[in-house]
């Protein structure tokens, strides 16, 4: 492949062009010129003009192009709160943003890091490097050092009374600037270091003080007034401490209406939009926030959430609710999905719609509960005993968590089967400022509505599992006279009565397979971006960095397509083969050791022999640059 040095900067220039309209043309020109000499490194990098001698930032991020920063601190230091406030603030300033977090295993008192990247265009991954790292303190930061990609143009902000910046970070060559964060905080009654830091960081980035303040008021809304006012005072002090705004104001005069939402919340919203009114679940990291978001909201919508005694119970509770006609969903993570697998098989055999959202984490076994990995694909696709066709889907981003879960609910209902949705920690526990996810056109005039086929007044010859061309048969709900049947995990005949006869087994197996394979899933089976004979094929949270990598390549003159599969099973084999029609390089990108998607696609005989895999385990986030490197190595 062509050398990437210096090529993708045109892409960067494009982002600059989309910057706030009040940015002077001259500054844009200067930034564009400076880009030309720079190596491919993403849209937020090393692009700007040094004006701030006080901070010693020789390469300050071009703020119109956005920036990437991280805030780290010991448990209780408020690093994550600071990240949330800055996220809200950049959203108010008119930026798109993505905020991720990483935490140790401690329940309370553990160190944590909040990572924030913002830009004037949608942000779908964390990029390759940090412009700024803020250390509220440096306790145990070594545990995160490999998650904090610094280089010689990054800036580390530290407290002037803190221990020296740890060697593991300092050896990146990043510049260090110290500020009297602690002294300033102590000068305020009940002052907090993290709030001082928010003010300072905001000033550095050119965020309007008003945006910082209103961000704080929103994030701290459930605290008492005194705490809120103290925090706001600290933010002002921090902002003033480095002489107020150190950059032209970022953002738009009237920011468009955007949402601040996490992947877990978006998945919950998708469930509600899809009609789910019953959730049974057992708490598990990193899925619990989805359940916590759903519980009070289900109640308002006339539904309910039942905290079950375990995942064996929760999946069977869903089946009970759905049998009664109320669409049901649960959220869990790998260990919980393992326990649910038998129940999912029951849903498949009894043709009872249920949806399981698996917010994946590092595995196997208890694995790495707080960090992300895409290693449950094999379990989701192959875990069920017997021939048990079911649906496996994966959202391609935070906003898409809403779409994909809603779609999954509709498909499960329509097809009277189980759907597993593979989200993960990196999607679920990250927040983004994004355009409101449209209520998808799942209901389209040319399609059946995504509801199940119900017989309201079954005739005397009604049979629950009567084979049909579509494989679908209408369901009766308890309460309907004349429709009584016993749903069963035992193989059964058309009337539901248990049968071990070969003819019934073949007929019902075919019915359950046909209803999935004969269905028209439309164009939503994948998200496809770009054109070109170079192809990056991926799924789930890897889609973000893959999309960015493909965009950079395309901008560098090498047209590249990215395909993120949304419907993993049943694989839309013919549609995918059509997409793969070209003979260019194909790289299958995913975050697991076993190349699970790559192997699955090979098993389905869709990949040509020259297709290559780039698969590595979590918990480190996939970054666009490593995908580009992997593609380069393959070439």
């Amino acid at each position: 492949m062509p050398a990437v040095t210096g090529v993708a900067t045109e892409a960067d220039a494009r982002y600059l062009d989309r910057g706030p309209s009040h940015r002077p043309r001259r500054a844009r020109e200067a930034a564009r010129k400076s880009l030309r000499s720079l190596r491919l490194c993403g849209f937020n990098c090393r692009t700007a003009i040094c004006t701030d001698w006080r901070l010693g930032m020789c390469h300050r991020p071009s703020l119109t192009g956005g920036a990437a920063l991280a805030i780290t601190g010991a448990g209780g230091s408020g690093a994550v709160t600071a990240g949330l406030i800055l996220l809200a603030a950049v959203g108010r300033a008119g930026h798109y943003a993505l905020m991720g977090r990483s935490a140790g295993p401690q329940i309370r008192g553990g160190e944590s890091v909040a990572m924030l990247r913002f830009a004037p265009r949608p942000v779908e991954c964390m990029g390759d490097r940090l412009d700024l790292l803020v250390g509220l303190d440096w306790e145990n930061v070594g545990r995160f050092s490999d998650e904090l990609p610094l280089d010689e143009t990054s800036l580390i902000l530290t407290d002037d009374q803190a221990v020296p910046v740890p060697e593991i970070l300092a050896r990146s060559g990043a510049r260090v600037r110290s500020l009297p964060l602690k002294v300033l905080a102590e000068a305020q009654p009940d002052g907090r270091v993290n709030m001082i830091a928010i003010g300072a960081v905001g000033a550095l980035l050119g965020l309007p003080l008003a945006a910082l303040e209103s961000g704080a008021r929103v994030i701290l809304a459930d605290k008492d007034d005194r705490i809120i006012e103290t925090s706001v005072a600290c933010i002002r002090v921090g902002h003033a401490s480095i002489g107020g705004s150190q950059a032209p104001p970022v953002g738009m005069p009237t920011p468009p209406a955007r949402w601040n939402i996490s992947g877990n919340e978006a998945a919950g919203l998708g469930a509600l939009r899809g009609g789910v009114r019953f959730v049974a679940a057992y708490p598990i990291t990193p899925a619990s926030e989805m359940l916590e978001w759903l519980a009070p909201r289900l109640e308002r919508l006339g539904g309910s959430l039942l905290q079950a005694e375990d995942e064996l119970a929760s999946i069977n509770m869903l089946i009970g609710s759905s049998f009664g006609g109320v669409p049901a969903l649960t959220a869990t993570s790998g260990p919980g999905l393992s326990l649910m697998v038998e129940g999912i098989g029951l849903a498949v055999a009894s043709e009872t719609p249920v949806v399981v959202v698996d917010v994946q984490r590092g595995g196997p076994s208890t694995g790495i509960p707080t960090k992300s990995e895409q290693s449950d694909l094999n379990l989701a696709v192959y875990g069920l005993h017997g021939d048990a066709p079911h649906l496996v889907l994966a959202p391609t981003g935070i906003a898409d968590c809403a779409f994909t879960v809603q779609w999954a609910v509709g498909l499960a209902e329509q097809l009277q089967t189980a759907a597993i949705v593979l989200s993960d920690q990196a999607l679920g526990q990250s927040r983004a400022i994004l355009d409101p996810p449209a209520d998808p056109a799942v209901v389209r005039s040319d399609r059946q509505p995504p509801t199940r086929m119900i017989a309201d007044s079954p005739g005397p010859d009604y049979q629950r599992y009567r084979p049909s061309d579509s494989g679908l048969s209408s369901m009766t709900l308890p309460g309907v006279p004349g429709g009584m049947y016993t749903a069963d995990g035992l193989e059964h005949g058309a009337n539901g009565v248990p049968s071990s006869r070969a003819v019934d087994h073949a007929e019902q197996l075919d019915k359950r397979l046909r209803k999935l394979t004969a269905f028209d899933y439309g164009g939503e089976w994948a998200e496809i971006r770009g054109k070109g004979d170079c192809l990056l094929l991926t799924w789930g949270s890897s889609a973000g960095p893959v999309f960015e990598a493909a965009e950079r390549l395309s901008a560098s003159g090498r047209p590249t397509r990215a395909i993120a599969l949304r419907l993993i099973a049943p694989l839309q084999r013919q549609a995918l083969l059509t997409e793969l029609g070209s003979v260019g390089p194909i790289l299958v990108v995913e975050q697991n050791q076993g190349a699970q998607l790559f192997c699955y696609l090979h098993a389905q005989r869709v990949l040509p022999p020259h297709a290559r895999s780039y698969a590595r385990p979590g918990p480190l986030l996939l970054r666009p640059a490593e995908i580009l490197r992997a593609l380069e190595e393959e070439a």
Partner: protein
Amino acid sequence: MDAASVIPTLRAKDYKSDVVPVWCPGCGHFGVLSAVTKALAYLKLPKERVALISGIGCSARLPAYVGAYGFHGVHGRALPLAAGLKAARPDLTVLVAGGDGDGFSIGGNHFLHACRRNMDMAYIVMDNEVYGMTKGQASPTTRPDWAKSKLTPHGTGIRPFQPAAIALAAGASFIARGYSGDPGGLTRLISEAIEHPGFGFLHVLSPCRTFRPEQSDWKHQVHRSDKGPTDDPAEAAHSIQADDGMTLGLLYARRLPVWQPDNRATATTADLEGAFVV
């Protein structure tokens, strides 16, 4: 003429389906099936408003033999499935049927939590102290010295599970014991378990003619309680512990809060979305 008088009264046999039971001749479960249909007829419950839920085992075949709605699920998970159904459809009469293995071994955890959750349903456990469907292994209620199973040739050596005592400790609000050979008494207890507001646990001694032929002697061992039910858990604990396990009747009943979500909507999805706006 009121509405009730035009609904034809169903007799017990009208509640039976036309599916032929897989049970062995002489199985105690025939008596339970008969009593279930008699109780449904006695309570005049429309067939379509009744759901029978079960897991796996000989006894778990019961729903298919009743002409109501039914769900024959996986081993040990009948109670959660029933809980999901009742949460979603409080209008239905939910009965759960199963055996000692399904309910006290593989499903033991669900039994504890169903007792304390106290949802409005009846749970009928047909206890024959053996796994019949898998051809005669020891169950949680089998005596420790029962050595007829090849799987435990010296007996289990483990003291049996005490269903009534454990139900009480787990917070059950209704505990009764019946015998499949006592059709009248069993019908009455099933009716009471259904009518009890909350989780009605009915432990039914139901002999296995094939693997535990000695249980035919149960007809001489069972006896009625010489006192009425108590609502005092301490008193019930004493009497249940002191009992020989063959006492029939309602042992304990107490009004306790019933868990049932309120299914009235006060908002729409669109109402919730405003909270996301930056």
